[in-house]
């Protein structure tokens, strides 16, 4: 993606460089050529509608190419591929907390393998932050109270700056870290070195310890909807609207259950605001998402093996 952003940037630099040069040269040449001289009067010209129209429409046409190219890149940046590995990020004043699906946790560091699409599901515990990796040319604000997402695919092993780009208080400039990009085999080794209970297992334990399972049953119809296969599907609400059950919907339904009542159910669920932490919420969301296969009773969910290097999918990133 960074290659595409740079290409567009160079295109804009060229166009605006030419424009700036044209204006600078025109002003300089005219200012010298028509400098005040004794006996030479100014020659009055009222204007020219044809010129006005052409210097409105032609630049606008050029700007449309900026718009379209920029919008195409933005669309790709905002559309994570389906096969992306998910990583949960919680921001707080002034650190980044990262949790991998495998259960591995990090602070102010994010390890990723090369060649793998990575989707970050981010939220903030306090104020607005912004996850900014200049080397990847990507940035996304991280908000309290909801998820925002960001994705990338790293291609070159190395360590890259992670900055907070939205002003967040005293140590805003200290809220940095590193993205450590590793070869897949090194990454697998790094991942194996940590303690791990997969995130959805943590979520599953919470699901029963918090009593969710008493109403959201998988065998018979409980007082709450059966959550099997719900994730990313359209849900018909009590008020007739249909929404997609994405991460933000699941999150909201835990914190503010009466906001969007599923058709045919009563608003009986209590809020879990202040009861579950952002990390526990992430685990619950990960668990609900994993229910697209019926639960097997044990933590037997297939985790994605570390993707082997695929040279044909490499792109300048």
């Amino acid at each position: 993606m960074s290659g595409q952003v740079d290409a567009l940037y160079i295109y804009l630099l060229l166009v605006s460089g030419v424009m700036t040069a044209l204006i600078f040269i025109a002003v300089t040449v005219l200012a010298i050529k028509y400098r005040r001289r004794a006996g030479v009067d100014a020659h009055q010209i009222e204007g020219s509608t044809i010129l006005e129209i052409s210097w409105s429409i032609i630049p606008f046409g050029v700007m449309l190419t900026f718009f379209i190219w920029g919008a195409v890149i933005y669309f790709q940046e905002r559309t994570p591929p389906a096969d992306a590995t998910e990583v949960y990020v919680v921001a707080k004043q002034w650190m980044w907390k990262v949790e991998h699906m495998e259960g591995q946790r990090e602070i102010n560091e994010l390890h990723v393998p090369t060649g793998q699409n990575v989707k970050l599901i981010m939220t903030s515990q306090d104020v607005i932050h912004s996850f900014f990796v200049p080397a990847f040319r990507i940035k996304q604000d991280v908000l309290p109270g909801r998820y925002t997402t960001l994705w990338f695919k790293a291609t070159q092993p190395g360590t890259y700056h992670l900055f907070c780009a939205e002003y967040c208080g005293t140590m805003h400039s200290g809220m940095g870290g590193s993205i450590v990009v590793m070869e897949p085999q090194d990454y697998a080794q790094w991942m194996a070195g940590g303690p791990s209970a997969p995130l959805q297992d943590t979520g599953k334990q919470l699901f029963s310890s918090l009593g969710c399972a008493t109403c959201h049953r998988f065998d018979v119809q409980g007082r709450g909807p059966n959550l099997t296969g719900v994730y990313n599907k359209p849900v018909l609400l009590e008020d007739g609207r249909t929404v997609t059950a994405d991460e933000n919907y699941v999150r909201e339904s835990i914190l503010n259950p009466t906001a969007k009542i599923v058709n045919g159910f009563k608003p009986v669920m209590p809020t879990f605001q202040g009861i579950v932490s952002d990390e526990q919420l992430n685990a619950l969301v990960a668990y609900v998402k994993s229910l697209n296969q019926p639960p097997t009773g044990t933590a037997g969910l297939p985790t994605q093996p570390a993707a082997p290097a695929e040279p044909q999918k490499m792109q300048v990133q």
Partner: protein
Amino acid sequence: MATEAMAANQAPGSNYLTNGHGIKSWLLTTDHKRIAILYLISVSIFFFLGGLFAMFIRLELLTPQGDLMQADTYNKVFTMHGMIMVFFFLIPVVPAVLGNFLVPLMIGAKDLAFPRINLLSWYLYVIGGTLILHCMLTGGVDTGWTFYTPFSTAFTNTKIIEAGLAAFIAGFSSIFTGLNFIVTIHRMRAPGLTWDRLPLFIWANYATSLIMILGTPVVAITIVLVAVERLFHLGIFDPKLGGDPILFQHLFWFYSHPAVYIMILPSMGVISELITCFSRKRVFGYKFIALSSVAIAVIGFLVWAHHMFVAGISLYAAMIFSFLTFFVGVPSAIKVFNWTATLYRGSISYATPMLYAFGFIGLFTIGGLTGLFLATLGIDVHVTDTYFVVAHFHYVMVGGVLMGYLGGMHFWWPKISGRMYPEGWAKLSALLVFVGFNLTFFPQFILGYVGMPRRYWQYPPEFQVLNVLSTAGASVLAVGYLLPMIYFLWSLRYGPIAEANPWNAAGLEWKTSSPPPTFNFDETPVVTWEAYNYDEIPPKEMEVPVG
């Protein structure tokens, strides 16, 4: 009151400066020209205060580690720099100083429509300004001038309410000025001065006034909502209370983006006056320049969310706002092209005001074109909230607005003070400002693209070289800004006496004495000519070969 002033007006040789002495004759004046002087003094104080904060910022950023001051102090310093420069300098500077002085003169009126409201608006400005100074001295604010929630409502312990109140009060000053200008321009034009004969400076101030009265109430409401949430914990913006933090950004930028046009449009009006006078030309494309000001005012209200492409707004909202933002580029481009075309076959003098006009075109072109980078979604994601944005808006707001303001101050100084400024020093300061400005802010474009975020107290060492360049430029720029302050004051006593029309300029303000009498014109002028009829006015003999 009126008869009293009228009687004084009859004294031979009396002008608005000599008509009435003593502090009361100034503090209780309703003369738009005296109020302009009051504004001139107060905005200058705030400009130098804001500039002092800028120097602290640049000094801290000389080295990568935070060493000159604490992180909290740095955060308060850049907040104060932003608040003072935006609310107490850039927004009022051209309308309240030059506009106040010139709008009645340029349209052949005796004063603004509501002279007392005009004085009230200065007092509101002073009250707001005093509050912000008090706030600064008793602890300050650390949110940045943008007050983003929920940081401002639930997390910071600094003086949000007081700073917000200062901006709130100053906002009413701006609303009153806008209201006064609109009514005056509609109702008080001299006979024969039809809309298509108005100086472009008037058109620009008219468009600005529209934004002031339509936009400013929104920021006032937003400040109230922030205060309500902070004081009474009513959930509006804080998600913990059921609010939406992005709502704040929508409301804030709905005013604060058009506010950029409040700053730049009057300066654009100044540039149209300067370029015509110093090339002895009718302006190229009068109607297009006039209407482009109105177009900027209208379209400027439809682009606010381009500040929020990474804030968490929807994909399609971002696309629509990106598209609309390119629209607002067109009227700005029209102005630049028309000014350039006006030079063609002119008789161009290189007097100081014209040097500032050239400088304006240069800096505004770079500021405007880098705005297109930011309007382009794929690029904005990378450079937003970095020094690229900082460089861009300084090019537009400081490069543009100050070049126009200083050019205008030199041009109208003889009319305001009755004295000429020293041309040699003035040319030197114009050069220092242009060079110093580019040295300060051009490196910041590069700094932003390589990834340095804004509002950073410390930064990785690889960014140091560009930061040192920027700080060096800021020192040159500071000298460039201080010089006019000194020689304008000097000229009050030692400058050559100015004639009524030292530039042989068109425009009604030059048809009365310098400085003008209290009621501007001895007889109401009747206008029978088009704007910028430089074909009917010969240039000054003494001026003929310049440069």
